[in-house]
Protein backbone atom coordinates (compact mmCIF):
# COMPACT_ATOMS: atom_id res chain seq x y z
CA UNK A 1 0.00 0.00 0.00
CA UNK A 2 1.34 3.35 -1.00
CA UNK A 3 4.02 1.44 -2.90
CA UNK A 4 4.98 1.53 -6.56
CA UNK A 5 6.97 -0.72 -8.85
CA UNK A 6 8.02 -0.75 -12.47
CA UNK A 7 8.97 -3.60 -14.77
CA UNK A 8 10.35 -4.24 -18.25
CA UNK A 9 11.85 -7.73 -18.05
CA UNK A 10 9.75 -10.35 -19.83
CA UNK A 11 8.15 -12.60 -17.23
CA UNK A 12 7.72 -9.78 -14.68
CA UNK A 13 4.42 -9.52 -12.86
CA UNK A 14 3.40 -6.36 -11.04
CA UNK A 15 0.43 -6.64 -8.73
CA UNK A 16 -1.80 -5.00 -6.14
CA UNK A 17 -3.28 -7.64 -3.88
CA UNK A 18 -6.54 -7.14 -1.98
CA UNK A 19 -7.64 -3.74 -3.26
CA UNK A 20 -10.73 -2.48 -1.47
CA UNK A 21 -11.31 1.26 -1.66
CA UNK A 22 -7.71 1.66 -2.85
CA UNK A 23 -6.88 2.09 -6.53
CA UNK A 24 -4.34 0.01 -8.39
CA UNK A 25 -3.02 2.20 -11.19
CA UNK A 26 -0.94 0.83 -14.04
CA UNK A 27 0.84 3.00 -16.59
CA UNK A 28 1.84 1.04 -19.67
CA UNK A 29 3.89 1.68 -22.79
CA UNK A 30 2.96 -1.33 -24.89
CA UNK A 31 5.53 -0.65 -27.62
CA UNK A 32 8.39 -0.42 -25.17
CA UNK A 33 7.06 -3.33 -23.11
CA UNK A 34 7.32 -1.31 -19.90
CA UNK A 35 4.78 -0.91 -17.11
CA UNK A 36 4.56 0.71 -13.71
CA UNK A 37 2.02 0.03 -10.99
CA UNK A 38 1.07 2.06 -7.90
CA UNK A 39 -1.18 1.10 -4.99
CA UNK A 40 -2.98 4.38 -4.27
CA UNK A 41 -4.67 4.66 -0.90
CA UNK A 42 -6.14 8.15 -0.66
CA UNK A 43 -7.21 11.03 -2.93
CA UNK A 44 -4.90 13.64 -1.43
CA UNK A 45 -2.60 14.24 1.48
CA UNK A 46 0.91 15.28 2.41
CA UNK A 47 2.48 13.36 -0.47
CA UNK A 48 4.63 11.13 1.71
CA UNK A 49 5.02 8.52 0.39
CA UNK A 50 3.98 9.87 -3.03
CA UNK A 51 2.31 6.69 -4.27
CA UNK A 52 -0.06 6.81 -1.28
CA UNK A 53 -1.99 9.76 -2.73
CA UNK A 54 -3.60 10.12 -6.14
CA UNK A 55 -2.32 13.61 -6.91
CA UNK A 56 1.30 12.71 -6.24
CA UNK A 57 1.20 9.08 -7.37
CA UNK A 58 0.37 9.84 -11.00
CA UNK A 59 3.32 12.14 -11.82
CA UNK A 60 5.77 10.09 -9.75
CA UNK A 61 4.68 6.79 -11.32
CA UNK A 62 4.85 8.35 -14.80
CA UNK A 63 8.41 9.52 -14.10
CA UNK A 64 9.48 6.12 -12.78
CA UNK A 65 7.89 4.28 -15.71
CA UNK A 66 9.67 6.58 -18.17
CA UNK A 67 12.92 6.02 -16.27
CA UNK A 68 12.34 2.28 -16.76
CA UNK A 69 12.23 2.77 -20.52
CA UNK A 70 8.71 3.95 -21.44
CA UNK A 71 8.02 6.89 -23.74
CA UNK A 72 6.11 9.54 -21.81
CA UNK A 73 3.71 10.27 -24.69
CA UNK A 74 2.94 6.57 -25.21
CA UNK A 75 1.79 5.94 -21.64
CA UNK A 76 -1.75 4.74 -21.13
CA UNK A 77 -3.47 4.01 -17.83
CA UNK A 78 -5.43 1.11 -16.33
CA UNK A 79 -7.45 1.62 -13.13
CA UNK A 80 -8.64 -1.12 -10.81
CA UNK A 81 -10.32 -0.93 -7.39
CA UNK A 82 -12.19 1.88 -5.66
CA UNK A 83 -14.90 -0.37 -4.26
CA UNK A 84 -17.41 0.73 -1.66
CA UNK A 85 -17.37 -2.30 0.58
CA UNK A 86 -19.44 -0.91 3.43
CA UNK A 87 -22.48 1.32 3.57
CA UNK A 88 -22.15 2.74 7.09
CA UNK A 89 -20.81 6.15 7.92
CA UNK A 90 -20.65 9.27 5.86
CA UNK A 91 -17.12 8.83 4.67
CA UNK A 92 -17.28 5.43 3.08
CA UNK A 93 -17.36 6.95 -0.40
CA UNK A 94 -13.59 6.94 -0.33
CA UNK A 95 -13.41 4.36 -3.13
CA UNK A 96 -15.25 6.67 -5.53
CA UNK A 97 -13.28 9.68 -4.32
CA UNK A 98 -10.05 7.80 -4.93
CA UNK A 99 -11.08 6.92 -8.46
CA UNK A 100 -12.14 10.47 -9.25
CA UNK A 101 -8.88 11.88 -7.90
CA UNK A 102 -6.80 9.43 -9.94
CA UNK A 103 -8.77 10.24 -13.11
CA UNK A 104 -8.31 13.97 -12.54
CA UNK A 105 -4.59 13.53 -12.02
CA UNK A 106 -4.41 11.46 -15.24
CA UNK A 107 -6.17 14.19 -17.21
CA UNK A 108 -3.70 16.73 -15.86
CA UNK A 109 -0.85 14.45 -16.83
CA UNK A 110 -2.34 13.88 -20.35
CA UNK A 111 -2.45 10.12 -19.85
CA UNK A 112 -5.53 8.41 -21.36
CA UNK A 113 -7.35 5.62 -19.53
CA UNK A 114 -7.71 2.51 -21.71
CA UNK A 115 -9.28 0.13 -19.21
CA UNK A 116 -10.92 0.33 -15.81
CA UNK A 117 -12.53 -2.14 -13.46
CA UNK A 118 -13.72 0.00 -10.59
CA UNK A 119 -16.51 0.53 -8.09
CA UNK A 120 -18.86 -2.17 -6.89
CA UNK A 121 -18.71 -3.68 -3.42
CA UNK A 122 -16.00 -6.32 -3.71
CA UNK A 123 -12.27 -6.46 -3.25
CA UNK A 124 -9.95 -7.10 -6.18
CA UNK A 125 -6.46 -8.25 -7.01
CA UNK A 126 -4.84 -6.58 -10.03
CA UNK A 127 -1.99 -8.15 -11.99
CA UNK A 128 0.03 -6.72 -14.85
CA UNK A 129 2.20 -9.20 -16.71
CA UNK A 130 5.05 -8.27 -18.98
CA UNK A 131 5.76 -10.77 -21.71
CA UNK A 132 5.71 -10.36 -25.50
CA UNK A 133 2.88 -8.00 -24.72
CA UNK A 134 1.79 -6.31 -21.54
CA UNK A 135 -1.45 -7.86 -20.26
CA UNK A 136 -3.63 -7.01 -17.28
CA UNK A 137 -6.03 -9.12 -15.26
CA UNK A 138 -8.36 -8.67 -12.31
CA UNK A 139 -9.59 -11.18 -9.81
CA UNK A 140 -12.66 -9.94 -7.98
CA UNK A 141 -13.77 -11.72 -4.81
CA UNK A 142 -16.17 -14.52 -5.68
CA UNK A 143 -15.32 -14.41 -9.41
CA UNK A 144 -12.81 -16.03 -11.72
CA UNK A 145 -9.79 -14.02 -12.85
CA UNK A 146 -10.56 -12.04 -15.99
CA UNK A 147 -8.35 -10.33 -18.55
CA UNK A 148 -8.85 -6.64 -19.12
CA UNK A 149 -9.18 -5.70 -22.75
CA UNK A 150 -6.36 -3.35 -23.65
CA UNK A 151 -7.19 -3.20 -27.37
CA UNK A 152 -6.37 0.46 -27.55
CA UNK A 153 -2.83 -0.33 -26.55
CA UNK A 154 -2.01 -2.22 -29.74
CA UNK A 155 -3.64 0.31 -32.07
CA UNK A 156 -1.00 2.45 -33.67
CA UNK A 157 -2.27 5.75 -34.88
CA UNK A 158 0.94 6.79 -36.59
CA UNK A 159 0.27 10.42 -35.81
CA UNK A 160 2.87 12.71 -34.38
CA UNK A 161 3.28 12.83 -30.67
CA UNK A 162 1.34 15.20 -28.45
CA UNK A 163 2.45 18.78 -28.50
CA UNK A 164 1.29 19.01 -24.93
CA UNK A 165 -0.94 21.92 -25.86
CA UNK A 166 -4.28 20.14 -25.73
CA UNK A 167 -5.92 19.70 -22.35
CA UNK A 168 -7.26 16.23 -23.05
CA UNK A 169 -5.24 13.68 -24.99
CA UNK A 170 -7.17 12.52 -28.03
CA UNK A 171 -4.62 10.29 -29.66
CA UNK A 172 -6.09 7.27 -27.98
CA UNK A 173 -9.68 7.25 -26.88
CA UNK A 174 -11.03 5.32 -23.93
CA UNK A 175 -13.23 2.99 -25.93
CA UNK A 176 -12.44 -0.29 -24.24
CA UNK A 177 -13.24 0.89 -20.77
CA UNK A 178 -15.20 -1.48 -18.61
CA UNK A 179 -16.92 -0.19 -15.52
CA UNK A 180 -19.03 -2.38 -13.31
Amino acid sequence: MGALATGWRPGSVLCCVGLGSCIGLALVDQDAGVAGVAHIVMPAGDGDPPAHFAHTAVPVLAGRTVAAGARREDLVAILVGGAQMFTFGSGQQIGARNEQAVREALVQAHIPVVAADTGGQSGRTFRVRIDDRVTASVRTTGQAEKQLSLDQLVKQTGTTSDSGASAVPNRRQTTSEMVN
Partner: protein
Amino acid sequence: MTPDHATYSPLQLDALRELANVGAGNATISLERLIGKPIGLDLPQVELLALDEAIERAGPPEAERYGIVVPAHGDFEALVLLLIDPRGAAVLYGAFGLARDSDESYSMLAELGNILASAYLGSLGRFSGMDLAPSPPQLVVDMLAAILATVLLGDGVDSDRVLFCDSQLSVEGERCNVEMLLIPEAGAVGTLIEHLGV
Protein backbone atom coordinates in the same frame (compact mmCIF):
# COMPACT_ATOMS: atom_id res chain seq x y z
CA MET B 1 -1.08 13.00 10.26
CA THR B 2 -3.66 13.47 12.97
CA PRO B 3 -2.13 14.71 16.22
CA ASP B 4 -3.81 11.97 18.17
CA HIS B 5 -2.04 9.30 16.20
CA ALA B 6 1.36 10.77 17.01
CA THR B 7 2.61 8.65 19.87
CA TYR B 8 1.38 7.12 23.07
CA SER B 9 3.33 6.52 26.23
CA PRO B 10 3.90 2.92 27.35
CA LEU B 11 1.46 3.61 30.18
CA GLN B 12 -1.23 4.74 27.74
CA LEU B 13 -0.69 1.67 25.54
CA ASP B 14 -0.93 -0.50 28.67
CA ALA B 15 -4.21 1.15 29.57
CA LEU B 16 -5.56 0.54 26.04
CA ARG B 17 -4.39 -3.09 26.22
CA GLU B 18 -6.17 -3.54 29.54
CA LEU B 19 -9.28 -2.00 28.06
CA ALA B 20 -9.14 -4.39 25.11
CA ASN B 21 -8.59 -7.27 27.51
CA VAL B 22 -11.65 -6.43 29.58
CA GLY B 23 -13.76 -5.86 26.47
CA ALA B 24 -12.67 -9.07 24.77
CA GLY B 25 -13.08 -10.96 28.07
CA ASN B 26 -16.69 -9.88 28.17
CA ALA B 27 -17.14 -10.86 24.51
CA THR B 28 -15.62 -14.26 25.30
CA ILE B 29 -18.27 -14.88 27.96
CA SER B 30 -21.01 -13.97 25.45
CA LEU B 31 -19.58 -16.35 22.85
CA GLU B 32 -19.34 -19.17 25.41
CA ARG B 33 -23.00 -18.70 26.29
CA LEU B 34 -24.00 -18.56 22.65
CA ILE B 35 -22.32 -21.70 21.41
CA GLY B 36 -21.97 -23.63 24.67
CA LYS B 37 -18.26 -24.32 24.27
CA PRO B 38 -15.26 -23.01 26.19
CA ILE B 39 -13.57 -20.05 24.51
CA GLY B 40 -9.91 -19.13 24.85
CA LEU B 41 -8.66 -15.55 24.76
CA ASP B 42 -5.12 -14.47 23.92
CA LEU B 43 -3.61 -11.37 25.48
CA PRO B 44 -4.58 -8.50 23.17
CA GLN B 45 -2.00 -6.84 20.97
CA VAL B 46 -2.14 -3.07 21.04
CA GLU B 47 0.32 -1.25 18.85
CA LEU B 48 0.65 1.79 16.68
CA LEU B 49 1.43 0.54 13.21
CA ALA B 50 1.70 1.90 9.71
CA LEU B 51 -1.33 0.89 7.68
CA ASP B 52 0.56 -1.68 5.60
CA GLU B 53 2.19 -3.16 8.73
CA ALA B 54 -1.20 -3.56 10.35
CA ILE B 55 -2.51 -5.37 7.28
CA GLU B 56 0.56 -7.56 7.07
CA ARG B 57 0.15 -8.46 10.73
CA ALA B 58 -3.40 -9.63 10.15
CA GLY B 59 -2.48 -12.38 7.65
CA PRO B 60 -2.20 -13.18 3.92
CA PRO B 61 -3.71 -10.21 2.01
CA GLU B 62 -5.76 -12.27 -0.44
CA ALA B 63 -7.08 -14.76 2.13
CA GLU B 64 -10.87 -15.01 2.30
CA ARG B 65 -12.40 -13.62 5.47
CA TYR B 66 -15.85 -13.05 6.86
CA GLY B 67 -15.73 -9.50 8.14
CA ILE B 68 -18.39 -8.15 10.47
CA VAL B 69 -18.27 -4.44 11.16
CA VAL B 70 -20.16 -2.83 14.03
CA PRO B 71 -19.92 0.96 14.15
CA ALA B 72 -20.24 2.62 17.57
CA HIS B 73 -21.35 6.15 18.22
CA GLY B 74 -21.59 8.34 21.28
CA ASP B 75 -18.82 9.86 23.35
CA PHE B 76 -16.39 7.90 21.25
CA GLU B 77 -16.56 7.09 17.51
CA ALA B 78 -15.17 3.71 16.62
CA LEU B 79 -15.72 0.48 14.75
CA VAL B 80 -15.41 -3.05 15.95
CA LEU B 81 -14.30 -5.42 13.20
CA LEU B 82 -14.55 -9.18 13.60
CA LEU B 83 -12.62 -11.36 11.18
CA ILE B 84 -13.35 -15.06 10.83
CA ASP B 85 -11.75 -17.43 8.33
CA PRO B 86 -13.94 -19.83 6.31
CA ARG B 87 -13.03 -22.80 8.51
CA GLY B 88 -13.94 -20.86 11.63
CA ALA B 89 -17.20 -19.75 10.07
CA ALA B 90 -18.01 -23.39 9.26
CA VAL B 91 -17.52 -24.32 12.93
CA LEU B 92 -19.90 -21.54 13.98
CA TYR B 93 -22.50 -22.59 11.39
CA GLY B 94 -22.24 -26.12 12.76
CA ALA B 95 -22.75 -24.93 16.32
CA PHE B 96 -26.09 -23.48 15.23
CA GLY B 97 -26.98 -26.30 12.83
CA LEU B 98 -27.00 -23.95 9.83
CA ALA B 99 -26.08 -24.66 6.22
CA ARG B 100 -22.88 -23.10 4.91
CA ASP B 101 -23.19 -19.70 3.24
CA SER B 102 -26.98 -19.51 3.40
CA ASP B 103 -28.95 -16.37 4.22
CA GLU B 104 -29.57 -17.80 7.69
CA SER B 105 -25.90 -18.44 8.29
CA TYR B 106 -24.96 -14.95 7.13
CA SER B 107 -27.50 -13.35 9.40
CA MET B 108 -26.32 -15.56 12.27
CA LEU B 109 -22.73 -14.36 11.73
CA ALA B 110 -23.85 -10.73 11.61
CA GLU B 111 -25.87 -11.22 14.81
CA LEU B 112 -22.97 -13.01 16.47
CA GLY B 113 -20.76 -10.05 15.53
CA ASN B 114 -23.34 -7.70 16.95
CA ILE B 115 -23.50 -9.55 20.26
CA LEU B 116 -19.72 -9.82 20.62
CA ALA B 117 -19.11 -6.22 19.61
CA SER B 118 -21.83 -5.00 21.96
CA ALA B 119 -20.28 -6.95 24.82
CA TYR B 120 -16.88 -5.51 23.94
CA LEU B 121 -18.15 -1.95 23.60
CA GLY B 122 -20.29 -2.29 26.74
CA SER B 123 -17.25 -3.01 28.91
CA LEU B 124 -15.27 -0.38 27.12
CA GLY B 125 -17.95 2.16 27.97
CA ARG B 126 -18.21 1.07 31.62
CA PHE B 127 -14.44 0.98 32.04
CA SER B 128 -13.91 4.42 30.57
CA GLY B 129 -17.13 6.05 31.75
CA MET B 130 -18.24 6.82 28.19
CA ASP B 131 -21.55 6.36 26.51
CA LEU B 132 -21.34 4.10 23.45
CA ALA B 133 -24.14 2.82 21.26
CA PRO B 134 -23.55 0.16 18.60
CA SER B 135 -25.17 0.47 15.15
CA PRO B 136 -26.46 -2.50 13.15
CA PRO B 137 -23.72 -4.87 11.96
CA GLN B 138 -22.62 -5.30 8.37
CA LEU B 139 -21.17 -8.52 7.00
CA VAL B 140 -18.87 -8.84 4.02
CA VAL B 141 -17.05 -11.85 2.63
CA ASP B 142 -13.92 -10.64 0.93
CA MET B 143 -10.14 -10.52 0.79
CA LEU B 144 -8.51 -9.77 4.14
CA ALA B 145 -6.48 -6.80 2.90
CA ALA B 146 -9.47 -5.27 1.10
CA ILE B 147 -11.64 -5.46 4.23
CA LEU B 148 -8.99 -4.25 6.62
CA ALA B 149 -7.61 -1.41 4.49
CA THR B 150 -11.11 -0.08 3.81
CA VAL B 151 -12.09 -0.22 7.47
CA LEU B 152 -8.80 1.18 8.79
CA LEU B 153 -8.89 4.05 6.32
CA GLY B 154 -12.35 5.01 7.48
CA ASP B 155 -13.30 8.37 6.08
CA GLY B 156 -9.95 8.86 4.45
CA VAL B 157 -8.22 10.97 7.06
CA ASP B 158 -4.53 10.88 6.35
CA SER B 159 -2.94 9.23 9.34
CA ASP B 160 0.51 7.73 9.07
CA ARG B 161 -0.21 5.22 11.76
CA VAL B 162 -3.21 3.32 12.97
CA LEU B 163 -3.92 1.91 16.40
CA PHE B 164 -3.92 -1.85 15.92
CA CYS B 165 -5.91 -3.24 18.81
CA ASP B 166 -6.34 -6.94 18.24
CA SER B 167 -7.89 -9.68 20.42
CA GLN B 168 -8.02 -13.33 19.40
CA LEU B 169 -10.85 -15.54 20.63
CA SER B 170 -10.69 -19.24 19.89
CA VAL B 171 -13.19 -22.01 20.33
CA GLU B 172 -11.33 -24.64 22.33
CA GLY B 173 -10.87 -27.95 20.59
CA GLU B 174 -12.00 -26.47 17.24
CA ARG B 175 -10.15 -24.70 14.48
CA CYS B 176 -12.15 -21.56 14.94
CA ASN B 177 -10.63 -18.17 15.68
CA VAL B 178 -12.46 -14.91 15.90
CA GLU B 179 -10.27 -11.87 15.61
CA MET B 180 -11.70 -8.70 17.16
CA LEU B 181 -10.27 -5.34 16.23
CA LEU B 182 -11.16 -2.03 17.81
CA ILE B 183 -10.74 0.74 15.27
CA PRO B 184 -11.15 4.22 16.73
CA GLU B 185 -11.94 6.99 14.29
CA ALA B 186 -9.60 9.93 13.92
CA GLY B 187 -9.36 11.85 17.19
CA ALA B 188 -11.13 9.16 19.20
CA VAL B 189 -8.06 7.62 20.81
CA GLY B 190 -7.24 10.95 22.43
CA THR B 191 -10.76 11.11 23.86
CA LEU B 192 -10.45 7.56 25.13
CA ILE B 193 -7.10 8.20 26.81
CA GLU B 194 -8.49 11.35 28.37
CA HIS B 195 -11.37 9.39 29.87
CA LEU B 196 -9.00 6.75 31.15
CA GLY B 197 -6.96 9.49 32.82
CA VAL B 198 -3.55 8.20 31.77
